[in-house]
C-alpha cells in the first residue's frame, strides 16, 4: 500500500511540475503577479510529493518488500541495515529518483529562501527548474519506474552488488548528485535571466550562493568517490580517467570557471555573455554525465545495471534542454552589452585566463571521453582513450593555471602591474624551490617532474598565504591580529581554496615516490616495504553477515617495534558468489601503507600487493580544504547582506522581455 502511495505521489509530482513549468511563464508574459506567486508554492508541493515517493521506496527497501521488482533485484534480507538504506540509490531507478528528489529540493530551497527576488525572476526560474523536473519525473514514471510490482513475490532478493556494500555508497552518490543537480538551479536562473532579458550584476549575486553550494558538494563528491575507489578496488589507484569520472570532472571544471567568472560579472559587470554560457554549459555537462552513467554507451567500470533504451530517453531530454537553452542564448546574446572594460593584465584578465584554461581542459576531457563514441559511430573502429591521453592534454593545461593563481591574486582590478605582482610573491617561489631542493637532498634525488610538482604545490600554498601575510604585515607587529581579523571572510575563503589546490598537487607529486611490491608470500615470510618490515602470519576464514571472508594477517614493523597489524581480506558474498577485495591500510602522518591480497594458493601462501604511499592523503585533503574554502565563502556576510539590496535595486527595471 505504501509503495502504491509512493507511486501515486510520483505521478502527482509530475502533474505539479507540469503546472509549475507552464503557469508562471504565462504569468510573466501577462505580468500577472497572482500566477507568478503560484510558482514557489508549486515548487514546495512538488518537493513534498517527490519526498513522499522517495520515502515509500526507502520503506520498501528497509522492510525488504521483494514484491517490488526493484527491491528484489537490488536487495537481500541478510544485508546490514545501512546497505538496505543506501541500496535505495545503488541501482538505476532509485538513483534517478534521488536525482529528481535533489532537483525538487533545490527548487523548493529557492522558493523558500528567495522571497526577496523580483517575482517574475523567481517565477520564471522555478518554471525552468520544473521543466527539467517534469522531464525526469516522466522518465521515471514511463521508462524506469522504481515502484513496479512482481505478481508472485519472491522470498529472497538478489542482493546488492558487493562492491557497493560499503559506507562510501551512503555518501558518494548523494554528494555527487547534489553537485550535478545543484547546477540545475544556476541553469534555471540563467535561462530566466535570458527570458526576462535581465543579465546584470544582480544576476551574478543571485546565482553565486547556488553555484558555490553546488561546487562545494561536487568537489567533495568527486574527492569522496576517488578515495572510495582507492580503498575499495584494491589496486591503489585514485583516478582512472574512466568516462564516468570524466563525466563528473567536466561540470566541475566549467563550474569552477563559472564561480570565477561570476565574480567578474558581479564586481565589474563584464563577461556577462560568457558567464551565462558557462551556467548553461555546466548544467548541460551535468546532464551529459547523467546520460553517460545511465545509458551505458561507454564502457566504464561504473557500468552497474544499464539499459541502452533508457539512454535514448535521457538523450532526448539532453538534446531538448541543451539545444533549447543554447537557442535561447543565441537569440539573446547579441542584446547583451559588453559591460566593464579592462586591460589584459588585470584581475579580470587573470580570471579570464583561469576561465580559458579551465574551459579548454574541460574541452580536452570532453573530446577524450566522447571521441571513442564518435569514431565508432563513423567508422566502426573501437578504440579506448585512456590515461595517457588525459595526462598529455588536461594535465599540462592545468600547469599554467596553477602558476598563474598566486600572481592573479595580486593583480588589481581594471589595470594591474604584472612585474609588481610577481615581485610581491617571489618569496613564495623562492621558498618553494628551496624546500624542494631540501626534499631532493633528503631523499637522495628524485624524478625531475615529481620535484617540479612538489615545487608547484608548495608555491601554490605559499602564494595563497601571501595574501594574508601581505595584509597582516602592513601595520607593524602590534597590528597583526587586528589586521588578520579585519580581512574579509571571502579573502580567507580564496586563500584556503587555493592552498587546497596546492596541497592536492603535493599529494599527486607524492605518488611518484610510492613503493610497490607484488609478491606471493608464505606464512612467516618477511618483506621490506619503504623502511618497514612486513611479516605474513597466516590465513584465517571469517564469516560476515552476508559474506565469507578469507583474511590474511600481516604484522608491520618499523625496525623492531610492531606498529600495526594489518588484515587485508577477500570476501565472497552469499547470493552473488562474487569476490571483492578488502584492503588494509596503516596511516603514518599523511602517508599510508596499503595492502591488498589476491588469490590464496595451496591453502597457505597468498598473492600480496603492498604499497607505501607517501603523502597520499593530501590528494583528498586538498579538495576537502578547497570545499572548506567554498563554505567559508558561502558564509560571507557580503553574500547574505548584499543580495537583497541588489535585488531591490534591480526590481524597478521591470520585465524587459
Amino acid at each position, binding site marked *: 500500500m505504501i509503495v502504491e502511495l509512493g507511486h501515486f505521489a510520483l505521478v502527482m509530482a509530475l502533474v505539479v511540475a507540469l503546472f509549475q513549468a507552464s503557469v508562471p511563464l504565462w504569468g510573466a508574459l501577462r505580468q500577472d503577479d497572482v500566477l507568478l506567486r503560484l510558482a514557489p508554492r508549486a515548487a514546495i508541493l512538488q518537493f513534498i510529493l517527490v519526498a513522499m515517493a522517495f520515502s515509500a521506496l526507502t520503506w520498501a527497501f528497509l522492510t525488504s518488500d521483494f514484491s517490488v521488482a526493484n527491491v528484489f533485484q537490488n536487495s537481500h534480507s541478510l544485508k546490514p541495515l545501512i546497505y538496505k538504506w543506501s541500496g535505495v540509490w545503488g541501482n538505476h531507478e532509485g538513483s534517478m529518483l534521488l536525482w529528481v528528489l535533489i532537483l525538487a529540493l533545490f527548487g523548493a530551497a529557492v522558493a523558500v529562501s528567495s522571497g526577496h527576488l523580483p517575482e517574475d525572476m523567481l517565477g520564471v526560474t522555478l518554471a525552468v527548474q520544473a521543466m527539467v523536473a517534469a522531464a525526469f519525473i516522466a522518465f521515471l514514471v514511463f521508462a524506469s519506474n522504481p515502484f513496479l510490482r512482481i505478481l508472485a513475490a519472491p522470498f529472497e532478493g538478489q542482493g546488492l552488488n558487493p562492491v557497493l556494500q560499503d559506507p562510501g555508497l551512503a555518501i558518494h552518490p548523494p554528494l555527487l548528485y547534489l553537485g550535478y543537480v545543484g547546477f540545475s538551479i544556476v541553469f534555471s536562473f540563467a535561462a530566466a535571466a535570458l527570458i526576462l532579458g535581465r543579465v546584470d550584476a544582480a544576476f551574478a549575486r543571485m546565482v553565486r550562493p547556488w553555484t558555490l553550494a553546488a561546487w562545494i558538494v561536487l568537489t567533495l563528491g568527486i574527492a569522496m568517490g576517488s578515495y572510495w575507489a582507492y580503498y575499495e578496488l584494491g589496486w591503489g589507484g585514485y583516478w582512472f580517467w574512466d568516462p564516468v569520472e570524466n563525466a563528473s570532472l567536466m561540470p566541475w571544471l566549467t563550474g569552477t570557471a563559472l564561480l570565477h567568472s561570476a565574480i567578474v560579472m558581479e564586481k565589474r559587470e563584464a563577461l556577462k555573455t560568457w558567464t551565462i554560457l558557462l551556467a548553461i554549459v555546466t548544467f548541460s555537462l551535468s546532464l551529459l554525465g547523467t546520460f553517460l552513467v545511465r545509458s551505458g554507451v561507454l564502457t566504464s567500470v561504473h557500468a552497474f545495471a544499464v539499459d541502452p533504451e533508457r539512454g535514448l530517453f535521457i538523450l532526448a531530454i539532453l538534446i531538448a534542454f541543451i539545444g533549447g537553452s543554447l537557442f535561447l542564448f543565441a537569440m539573446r546574446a547579441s542584446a547583451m552589452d559588453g559591460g566593464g572594460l579592462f586591460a589584459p593584465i588585470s584581475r579580470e584578465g587573470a580570471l579570464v585566463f583561469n576561465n580559458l584554461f579551465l574551459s579548454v581542459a574541460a574541452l580536452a576531457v570532453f573530446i577524450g571521453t566522447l571521441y571513442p563514441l564518435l569514431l565508432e559511430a563513423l567508422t566502426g573502429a573501437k578504440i579506448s582513450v*585512456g590515461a595517457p591521453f588525459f595526462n598529455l592534454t588536461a594535465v599540462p593545461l592545468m600547469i599554467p593555471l596553477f602558476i598563474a593563481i598566486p600572481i592573479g591574486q595580486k593583480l588589481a582590478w581594471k589595470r594591474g602591474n604584472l612585474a609588481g605582482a610577481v615581485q610581491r610573491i617571489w618569496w613564495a617561489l623562492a621558498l618553494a624551490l628551496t624546500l624542494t631542493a631540501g626534499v631532493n637532498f633528503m631523499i637522495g634525488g628524485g624524478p625531475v617532474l615529481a620535484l617540479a610538482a612538489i615545487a608547484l604545490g608548495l608555491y601554490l600554498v605559499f602564494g595563497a598565504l601571501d595574501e594574508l601575510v601581505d595584509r597582516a604585515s602592513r601595520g607593524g607587529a602590534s597590528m597583526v591580529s587586528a589586521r588578520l581579523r579585519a580581512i574579509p571572510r571571502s579573502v580567507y575563503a580564496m586563500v584556503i581554496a587555493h592552498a587546497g589546490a596546492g596541497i592536492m598537487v603535493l599529494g599527486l607529486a607524492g605518488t611518484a615516490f610510492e613503493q610497490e611490491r607484488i609478491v606471493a608470500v608464505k606464512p612467516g615470510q618477511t618483506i621490506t616495504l619503504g623502511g618497514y618490515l612486513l611479516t605474513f602470519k597466516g590465513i584465517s576464514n571469517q564469516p560476515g553477515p552476508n559474506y565469507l571472508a578469507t583474511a590474511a594477517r600481516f604484522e608491520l614493523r618499523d625496525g623492531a617495534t610492531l606498529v600495526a597489524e594489518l588484515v587485508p581480506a577477500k570476501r565472497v558474498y552469499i547470493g552473488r558468489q562474487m569476490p571483492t577485495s578488502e584492503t588494509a591500510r596503516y596511516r603514518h602522518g599523511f602517508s599510508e601503507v596499503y595492502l591488498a591480497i589476491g588469490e590464496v594458493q595451496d591453502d597457505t601462501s597468498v598473492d600480496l600487493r603492498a604499497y607505501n604511499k607517501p603523502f597520499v592523503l593530501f590528494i583528498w585533503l586538498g579538495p576537502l580544504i578547497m570545499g572548506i574554502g567554498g563554505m567559508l565563502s558561502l558564509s560571507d556576510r557580503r553574500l547574505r547582506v548584499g543580495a537583497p539590496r541588489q535585488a531591490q535595486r534591480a526590481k524597478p527595471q521591470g520585465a524587459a522581455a
Partner: protein
Amino acid sequence: MTRKQKRLALIGGIGVVLALAVGLILTALRDQIVFFRSPTEVVQGKVKPGDSFRLGGLVEKGSVNKESGQIVRFVVTDGANAVKVTFTGLLPDLFREGQGVVAEGKLDPAGQFTASNVLAKHDENYMPREVADSLKKQGVWRDDAGSKGAKP
C-alpha cells in the same frame, strides 16, 4: 592601449591558447589511443607486433595456468579464434574462466600477447560492450550473461 587594442590582445591571447590546446589534443589523439581487437582480428593479422592494443574476448575454460613469479598464462577466445596471453601480476577479483576479459598489451613476433594490464570489472554480470559485440559477430553470444540485471 585603446579599447580596440585591448580587445585584440585578449582575443589574440585566447586564440593562441586555444590553438595550443587543440594541437595538444590532436597529437595525443593520434598517439595515445588504443584500438580494441578481437582474437579473430589478431589472427587475421590486423595487428602488427609491437603495437599496443586491447584484446577482448572470453577466457577459455581450462586455459588459465599460474606459474611462479606471478606469471599467468591464459587463452582469450571469441569462439572462432584464440590468442595466448601472458600476464605478470595480480589478476582482478572477477577474472574467471569462461568470463569476458579485456587485456591491454602488445603482440610479440611469435603471435603471443603480453598483457601489461588486465581490466577489472565491477559486476559479475557486466560484459565489456566491445567483447559482447565481437562475440555477437562470431555467433557465440549467449544472452545469459547480461540478463540477470534485467527484468525477472
